[in-house]
């Protein structure tokens, strides 16, 4: 089995580290506010300034600053938000579960839906139903995720008023057990649908194209000739093999879904890291922004790495030296 190129992921990680380190320090203006956020000015005293200058070693040469920054990160110190008056990590961890819930469920839902309609559409290639699905998704593809979110928000929450407008649960409702879970689910519906609708077109197109090429493979003809039922040929033989590209692009899709979640959370005021970073953007709360960026980027890099590891297991052809299969 081939081991994925760990070096590549290490380089990605280093680029992220370097970016977060260099950005605030190379910008024109005061690096201290660029690192700590504008809110620090409110309580700035000469003593605090001296202490912060010392903590980030801002008067030392750049390489020394980088060393100090790395040491802090390795101790889990991602800085302090003067806006929330709390360590960055604490603030982020409070928001992270909501984002994970939204991103995770959307990733699963969009993958399953894309696979199914992709298989059906590819199987019915050229028929009316295929054309309909293709055209619909192509049109959907033109809508940016935040506009899909806005339309759903206006239609279902503002105009029809049948689903909650914002938040992840009803505040101070005192609900518990099953009721609280239903409440959370009700709040999740619109953001989840918005985010999922935005993901479906690209996955569906990929699935449909692979399905079409897979259907031309000899093994599909063999399966048909054996007299297998149509459903078995479509799903167990052709569909299963056509799923490979969808699986292997999961890592990239995680990055896209996370980015999409950022926008969707803002629209529905969903209290995840997207909303958190949006508020940080408005407040110039740079520590939070850097922290969210770091955690999201590392999460996406890890997801890519895991997918890379897994797909040699799913598709044995990738693990072996390709030359054997080349002819």
């Amino acid at each position, binding site marked *: 089995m081939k081991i994925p190129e760990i070096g590549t992921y290490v380089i990605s990680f280093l680029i992220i580290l370097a970016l977060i380190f260099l*950005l605030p320090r190379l910008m024109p203006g005061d690096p201290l506010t660029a690192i700590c956020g504008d809110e620090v000015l409110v309580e700035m005293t000469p003593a605090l300034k001296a202490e912060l200058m010392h903590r980030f070693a801002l008067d030392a040469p750049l390489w020394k600053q980088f060393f100090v920054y790395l040491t802090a990160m390795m101790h889990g110190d991602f800085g302090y938000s003067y806006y929330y008056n709390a360590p960055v990590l604490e603030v982020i961890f409070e928001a992270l579960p909501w984002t994970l819930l939204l991103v995770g469920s959307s990733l699963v839902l969009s993958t399953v839906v894309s696979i199914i309609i992709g298989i059906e559409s590819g199987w019915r290639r050229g028929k009316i139903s295929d054309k309909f699905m293709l055209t619909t998704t192509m049109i959907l593809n*033109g809508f940016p995720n935040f*506009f899909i979110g*806005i339309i759903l928000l206006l239609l279902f929450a503002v105009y029809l008023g049948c689903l909650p407008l914002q938040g992840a649960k009803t505040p101070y409702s005192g609900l518990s057990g099953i009721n609280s879970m239903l409440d959370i689910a009700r709040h999740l519906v619109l953001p989840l649908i918005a985010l999922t609708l935005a993901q479906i077109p690209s996955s569906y197109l990929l699935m449909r194209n692979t399905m079409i090429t897979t259907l031309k493979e000899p093994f599909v003809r063999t399966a048909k000739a054996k007299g297998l039922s149509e459903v078995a040929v479509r799903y167990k033989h052709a569909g299963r093999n056509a799923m490979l590209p969808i699986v292997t692009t999961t890592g990239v899709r995680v*990055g896209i879904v*996370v980015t999409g979640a950022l926008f969707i959370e803002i629209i529905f005021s969903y209290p995840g890291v997207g909303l958190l970073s949006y508020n940080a953007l408005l407040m110039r709360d*740079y520590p939070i922004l850097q922290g969210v960026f770091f955690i999201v980027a590392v999460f996406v890099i890890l997801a890519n790495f895991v997918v890379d590891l897994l797909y040699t297991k799913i598709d044995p052809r990738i693990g072996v030296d390709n030359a054997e299969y080349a002819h």
Partner: protein
Amino acid sequence: MHINYWHELIRNNFGKLGLAMLCFVLFIALFAPFLARYDPGEPSHAIFMPPSVDHWLGTNDIGQDIWSRLLCGAKNTLLVALGVGVFTTLLSTVIGASAALVGGIYDRILMRLIDALIVIPAFIVIILVAAYVLPNVWTLIFLISILTWQGGARLVRAQTLSLKERMSVYAARTFGANKRYIIVRHIIPNLSPILFAVFIHSATRGVFIEAGLAFLGIADISTVSWGLMMHHALRFYYLDVWKWWLIPTGLALSVTIMALVFIGHALETAMDPRLRVMEQEEWQ
């Protein structure tokens, strides 16, 4: 095998529709000064006016005519599309083609860098950088291009590698063609379809990212940007203004992205031989 890509694009229904929509947006962008009835930046006392004969799409919170702003926003969007498209394609071509042609350690280093960059979610990097830089249109085009060239470069590299091995190139070499001649006469002309595809994809991404950033509020306030208009309009969702402020702006943005997506899809179909044959059967 020679395929007339322009012909393929016109034959494909999505391609046709996409081109028509893009021409429409282009027309609006070019003639906005004549079509607009008010100065898009001019505030007035008539705020939150519903649509009327004077103001086709009403006015916004500081009394600017929304219809005029909508027309004017097309220019900004297309400028970003063109800028990001050209600049990203240029970067992808120079980096991808040089990696394929030079080869060796240079190629290995660049490929490793591309692999590493592809894993990083580019949009989030752009948001972080833009939060510090606060870009105007030109710096934004530069920023988007410099952070999103990697996918295109990989495509260009792969295509150049396969072109390098073509019979015609071998033939030219046996006739004593030098490197420069081969690059200018054989590699670059044959790269053009893939470059056009890279251009369209980059332009689409550019429009989307510009709108997204502006929607987050990261934009030059003096420019008339659809994303920025949506950013402002969403704050007043509880009023009725979204019907003529938020929705038309979002639709204008979607139509532009849709046009580019359609063209991109048609190109992709034209370039994938397996799909091309079959889509022709389908869509005629």
